[in-house]
C-alpha cells in the first residue's frame, strides 16, 4: 500500500505545471462555490434571524384558530395555568414575551395608512428585541404607557413627529370597533424597510384596552435557552398544554412558506454550481486522460513485471483523488479567512442595489454564512466528482491488453 501511495504521489509531480494548474482549477471552483453558498446561506440566515427576532420568535403559543385566521377574535387567554406551565420550564426557557397585535388604520389630518399595531410588555420585549439604541426621538415605552412608539419609516410616510396625535382605527374583540387618539412618544428606526414602514408599538395594557380584549394575547413568544433545542421544548409544552384551546408552533412551522421559497431559490444556485463543477470535471478528466495516454509503455512494463491490474488501478485512482483532495483542502483554506472576514464585516450595499433589495423588505447588506456545512458540502461534492472521474482510469487499466500497450 505504501508503494502504491508513493508511486501515485510521485506521479503527480512528474508534470508539475499541469498538476498545479489542475489543482488550482479545483481550488478556484471550491473557492467560488463556497463564496456563492456562504453569501446565499448568509442572507437566508440573516432573514430567518430577523424574522425570528422581529416577528415570530422561536416558539409561539397561540389560540388554536389563530394560525388559520389571525384575527383579534382568535386570540388566546393568558391565564395562570399557562404562566405556571411556562414557569415549570424555567430552566429551558430563557424568557417569554406576550404580544397582542393586529392591523389598524392610522390617520393624521392628511394621510391614512394601514399598519401593524403591536401591544408589548416593554421590559420583556426588550429581551427579544432591544430597540432602545435605535430610538431616534423621544423615549421607549413604559408599562401601562398610553403613548405610541412608532417606526421611523411610518412616521415619515405620515409626516408625523414626536408629540403629534394619531388616530387609530381597527376591529376590536367580538365585533366591537376599536378607536382612539394616541400621542407619539417615541420614534424608532427598525432597519428592515418592510417593518420600518408598517409598525407601531404600544404598551400591552393600552393595546388590550384599545382592542377591548382584556387578558388576551395573540401569542406568547417563547425563547429557549438553547435555540437548537427548540423542537424538543416546543414538543414538551405542546404535550402539557390544553390542545383544545392552544397551539404551539415553532419558527420552522411559522416560516414554512419562506423556508420553501429559500429552498427553491437554492436550486438556482445549485444549477450554477453544477455548471461550474462540470467545467472543472472536464479539466480534471483531461489531465487524468493525458496521464493515462502518456504512460502506456510504463503500464506495459508494470504488467510485464507482474504488477496486478488492481494495484495499477489503485495508483491511477489515487492520483485523481489526490489532485482533488489537495484542490479542495486548499480551496477551503483560502476561503476560510475570506468568509470569516465578510461574516464579521458584511458587505454594505449602496445606491440602486440597496434600494432594490430594500423594496423586498430586506436589509441592504450582504451577510456571509460561516456555517460548516457551506464548507463540507463543497468538499463532498468535489470528492464524489473525483471518485467518478477516477473510475475511468480504473476501467481502462482493467481493459488494457498488455501486447497492445507494450510496443
Amino acid at each position, binding site marked *: 500500500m505504501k*508503494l502504491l501511495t508513493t*508511486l501515485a504521489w*510521485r*506521479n503527480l509531480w*512528474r508534470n508539475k505545471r499541469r498538476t498545479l494548474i489542475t489543482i488550482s482549477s479545483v481550488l478556484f471552483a471550491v473557492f467560488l462555490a463556497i463564496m456563492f453558498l456562504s453569501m446565499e446561506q448568509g442572507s437566508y440566515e440573516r432573514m430567518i434571524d430577523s424574522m425570528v427576532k422581529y416577528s415570530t420568535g422561536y416558539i409561539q403559543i397561540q389560540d388554536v384558530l389563530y394560525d388559520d385566521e389571525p384575527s383579534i377574535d382568535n386570540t388566546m387567554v393568558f391565564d395562570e395555568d399557562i404562566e405556571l406551565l411556562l414557569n415549570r420550564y424555567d430552566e429551558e426557557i430563557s424568557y417569554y414575551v406576550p404580544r397582542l397585535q393586529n392591523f389598524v388604520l392610522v390617520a393624521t389630518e392628511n394621510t391614512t395608512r394601514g399598519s401593524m399595531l403591536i401591544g408589548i410588555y416593554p421590559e420583556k420585549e426588550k429581551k427579544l428585541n432591544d430597540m432602545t439604541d435605535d430610538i431616534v426621538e423621544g423615549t421607549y415605552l413604559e408599562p401601562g404607557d398610553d403613548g405610541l412608539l412608532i417606526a421611523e419609516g411610518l412616521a415619515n410616510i405620515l409626516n408625523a413627529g414626536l408629540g403629534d396625535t394619531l388616530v387609530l382605527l381597527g376591529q376590536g374583540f367580538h365585533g366591537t370597533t376599536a378607536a382612539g387618539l394616541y400621542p407619539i412618544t417615541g420614534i424608532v428606526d427598525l432597519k428592515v424597510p418592510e417593518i420600518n414602514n408598517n409598525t407601531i408599538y404600544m404598551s400591552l395594557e393600552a393595546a388590550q384596552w384599545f382592542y377591548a380584549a382584556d387578558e388576551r394575547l395573540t401569542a406568547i413568544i417563547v425563547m429557549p435557552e438553547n435555540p437548537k433545542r427548540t423542537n424538543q421544548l416546543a414538543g414538551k409544552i405542546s404535550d402539557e398544554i390544553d390542545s383544545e384551546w392552544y397551539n404551539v408552533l415553532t419558527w420552522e412551522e411559522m416560516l414554512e412558506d419562506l423556508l420553501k421559497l429559500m429552498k427553491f431559490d437554492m436550486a438556482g444556485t445549485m444549477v450554477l454550481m453544477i455548471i461550474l463543477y462540470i467545467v472543472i470535471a472536464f479539466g480534471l478528466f483531461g489531465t487524468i486522460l493525458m496521464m493515462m495516454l502518456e504512460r502506456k*509503455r*510504463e503500464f506495459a*512494463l*508494470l*504488467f*510485464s*513485471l*507482474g*504488477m*496486478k*491490474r488492481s*494495484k495499477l488501478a489503485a495508483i491511477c485512482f489515487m492520483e485523481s483523488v489526490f489532485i482533488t483532495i489537495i484542490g479542495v483542502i486548499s480551496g477551503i483554506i483560502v476561503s476560510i479567512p475570506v468568509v470569516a472576514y465578510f461574516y464579521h464585516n458584511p458587505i454594505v450595499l449602496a445606491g440602486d442595489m440597496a434600494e432594490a433589495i430594500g423594496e423586498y423588505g430586506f436589509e441592504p447588506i450582504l451577510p456571509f454564512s460561516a456555517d460548516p456545512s457551506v464548507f463540507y458540502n463543497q468538499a463532498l461534492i468535489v470528492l464524489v466528482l473525483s471518485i467518478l472521474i477516477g473510475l475511468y482510469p480504473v476501467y481502462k487499466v482493467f481493459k488494457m491488453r*498488455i*501486447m497492445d500497450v*507494450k510496443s
Partner: protein
Amino acid sequence: MKTVIKTTDLTKIYNSSVAPVKAVDKVNLEFGEGEFTAIVGPSGSGKTTFLNLIGGLDKPTEGHVMIDDTDISNMKESKLFDFRLRNIGFVFQSYNLIPVLTAKENVSFIMLLQKESKAKMEKRAVEMLEQVGLSEKVDVRPSKLSGGQQQRVAVARALASKPKFVLADEPTANLDTESAFNLLDIMSRLNKEENITLIFSTHDQRVINRARRVITLVDGAVSKDETFDR
C-alpha cells in the same frame, strides 16, 4: 542439467490485414538451468514474439510453454501475473525503469511486490547495484542515468529477486559499443555467479559471441542451435 523451459510446437500467427504472419513457427526448444543463450536473427525473424511467449506476456496460437512442470500457455491472466512476478525476470530494449523511483527502488521493485522484508530487500538491492557497478547511483532517478546505466539497473532488478530465468529482449540495441560489451560482461558474470538462466535476443554481431549457446531464428523457425565452450 535440469530443464527450466520447454516449448513444444510453439506457434504464433498474427492475422494482419494483408495476410496471416507466422511470427513463430513450430518451435521445439529446451533451456537448461544456468544457461546463457542468445536468440539471434534479423529484424522480423520472431525473436521478440518468441520471448513474449516464453515469458507469458503473449498467448501462443498453437503449442505449449512448460516452465518446470507448469504449462503457462493456458494459464489464467491473474495467475500469470503472479507467475511472472515470482519466476521471470525481464529486461527490455528500452523503457525499463519506473521514472519516479530511484535506482535502488527500481531494483527493489519486484521484491516489494513480492512483499519481501525491508531489511533483506535493502541489502540485496544495494548489493546488486554494486554488482553492476552503480554503487554511486543508488539514490538517483533514471532520467539522471545514461542509457547503459539504465540497462544495468534493469539487469540488477531482473536478477535481484532470484527468478527462475531472465529474458532480455535486445538489451544492447540502444547502446554504444563500449556500454554494450560492458552490459554483456555483467550479464555473463552474474549468470555464472547467481546461476540464473539468462536468455537474450540480439541482432547485434558485436555481442553474439558472448553467449554460450546461440539459437538462430529465420522467419520464426529455428534454423541453427549451436553451443560454444566459453
